[in-house]
């Protein structure tokens, strides 16, 4: 199917909205749009960061997911207590594949689940005593922890426990930072507020801890990687490129990150943010308080990597700038070979994306490097500023959907007929059963890393492996097959 025109896409949106009742239709219409690169400000064409409509299937998470799962969880040498009933922590345990180095249970705790396991009596009588007892036990059992965070689940806010008081008391007792995080799941409309709350907790309880401490020797080339959660080793693939450029990465936030790194971040010269959505708050704060500039970068696909490396180098002197060129040159043969191998197999394939807060725009460049086209994209929890950036990346007359509902996404896919869908686990099996190749773009489908030049090779291989898998021709039962059915031809190559 060739590219859709603006009118066709608009008609498609109207058609999909048709089934909703009047009120729901009006609301959902604001979240769906046809991309127009002329538009400067996204709020003129799309509404985002609004409460999901009751009754529709949303794919969003909660504030607890944003704080414990995304921002705080990967900090490996702290213990993060899921304070409340057992499920929130247990069912999200180790699901995000934030890789780290260390001995789990001894000096790192990333994949473990610590919870206060609330029972009825804790709801009735309050859980503060239990919380302080847990922290005593943690201190006895895991003495190498560098600090504790208390990640509140819904009941904590509902019953009004004073976790701040417990945190202060315990900090004095164990002489380690204890950070209360008020990230109850009911706050906000999506995980996005959880990121903000977590950032604020970092600001209030961690960032200034070493302000008076001059023992850390900073160099003029200190940078930090912010908003890279090391999924499948992403941060490591990014870090090597920075280091080859001659920069010193003094902190990783928060994939494979430590408390000490976070505390030393104000000593950096430049904050590099990959996931803008989840970490821009703290970067803005550091710019204001410590005068550290920040910039967004994108390490998906060679075009964007080269662009970003040059942009990063522009903050430093000529040696670094020359080094950046050297790094790009060094990997040129490598990535050209990847493109030469996979581009002929992937050329012209059309992709629809629906991910969280940065990938719907960041990975577009990587697909384009492989000759693929992104025909639809959308975010679960983005804000206006994310869509501002997306409009420029996407082609004209492509679909943009905010907080898309299960129904809308399916209908869009049926009509647009993309060759590949990139989204999360909740969408995966629906689309696979519809006979459409699918990649999880949250967890890289248990593969990765996808960042950096090394990651691009893996990305290209994975996309090829999925798209050109022979199984897509076997979706229809053999006895139902007429000659070459058009659906099978569309689904696989």
């Amino acid at each position, binding site marked *: 199917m060739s590219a859709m025109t603006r009118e066709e896409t608009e008609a498609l949106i109207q058609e999909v909205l048709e089934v909703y009742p009047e009120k729901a239709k009006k609301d959902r219409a604001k979240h769906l749009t046809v991309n127009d690169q002329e538009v400067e*400000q996204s*709020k003129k064409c799309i509404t985002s*960061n609004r409460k999901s409509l009751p009754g529709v299937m949303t794919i969003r998470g909660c504030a607890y997911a944003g704080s414990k799962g995304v921002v705080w969880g990967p900090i490996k040498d702290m213990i993060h207590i899921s304070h409340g009933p057992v499920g929130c922590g247990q069912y999200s345990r180790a699901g995000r594949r934030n890789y780290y180095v260390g001995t789990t249970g001894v000096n790192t705790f990333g994949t473990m689940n610590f919870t206060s396991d609330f029972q009825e009596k804790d709801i009735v009588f309050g859980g503060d005593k239990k919380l302080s007892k847990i922290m005593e036990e943690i201190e006895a059992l895991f003495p190498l922890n560098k600090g504790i965070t208390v990640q509140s689940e819904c009941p904590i806010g509902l019953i009004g426990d004073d976790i701040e008081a417990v945190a202060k008391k315990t900090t004095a007792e164990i002489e380690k930072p204890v950070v209360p995080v008020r990230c109850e799941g009911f706050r906000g409309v999506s995980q996005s507020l959880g990121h*903000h709350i977590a950032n604020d907790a970092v600001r209030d309880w961690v960032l200034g801890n070493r302000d008076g401490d001059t023992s850390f020797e900073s160099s003029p080339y200190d940078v930090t990687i912010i908003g890279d959660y090391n999924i499948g080793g992403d941060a490591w693939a990014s870090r090597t490129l920075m280091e080859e450029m001659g920069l010193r990465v003094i902190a990783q936030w928060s994939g494979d990150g430590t408390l000490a790194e976070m505390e030393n971040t104000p000593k950096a010269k430049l904050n590099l943010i990959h996931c803008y959505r989840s970490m821009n708050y703290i970067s*803005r704060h550091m*710019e*204001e308080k410590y005068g550290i500039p920040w910039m967004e970068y994108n390490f998906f696909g060679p075009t964007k990597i080269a662009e970003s490396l040059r942009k990063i180098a522009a903050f430093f002197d000529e040696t670094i700038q020359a080094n950046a060129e050297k790094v790009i040159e060094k990997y040129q043969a490598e990535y050209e070979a990847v493109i030469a191998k996979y581009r002929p197999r992937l050329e012209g394939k059309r992709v629809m994306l629906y991910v969280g807060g940065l990938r719907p725009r960041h990975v577009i460049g990587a697909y384009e490097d492989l000759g693929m086209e992104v025909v639809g994209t959308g975010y679960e929890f983005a*804000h*206006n*500023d994310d869509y501002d950036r997306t409009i420029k990346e996407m082609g004209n007359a492509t679909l943009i959907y905010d907080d898309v509902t299960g129904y809308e996404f399916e209908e869009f896919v049926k009509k647009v007929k993309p060759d590949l869908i990139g989204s999360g686990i909740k969408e995966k099996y629906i689309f696979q059963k519809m006979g459409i190749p699918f990649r999880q773009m949250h967890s890289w489908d248990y593969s990765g890393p996808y960042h950096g030049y090394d990651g691009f090779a893996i990305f290209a291989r994975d996309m090829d492996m999925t798209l050109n898998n022979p199984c897509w021709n076997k979706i229809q039962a053999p006895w139902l097959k007429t000659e070459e059915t058009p659906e099978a031809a569309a689904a696989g190559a």
Partner: protein
Amino acid sequence: MPNVMIRVKDGGALLFYIAKKDQEDEIAHVETDTEDTWGGEVELTDGSKYYIDPITPRPSFPTTLRFKRA
């Protein structure tokens, strides 16, 4: 009375950011913008107006200021 973080954008324009409202707009016009005073009525590119009592000396950006709706 929103708390507003103002920072200098890449192009040199001032960016007006209200975290609570998730609003991020460039400042189109400031009533008083001299070497030593900054403030008064501030108009954003989207047309909305805010007010702050003129500050002397001129604050260095980025900074967080408390505005009133004008």
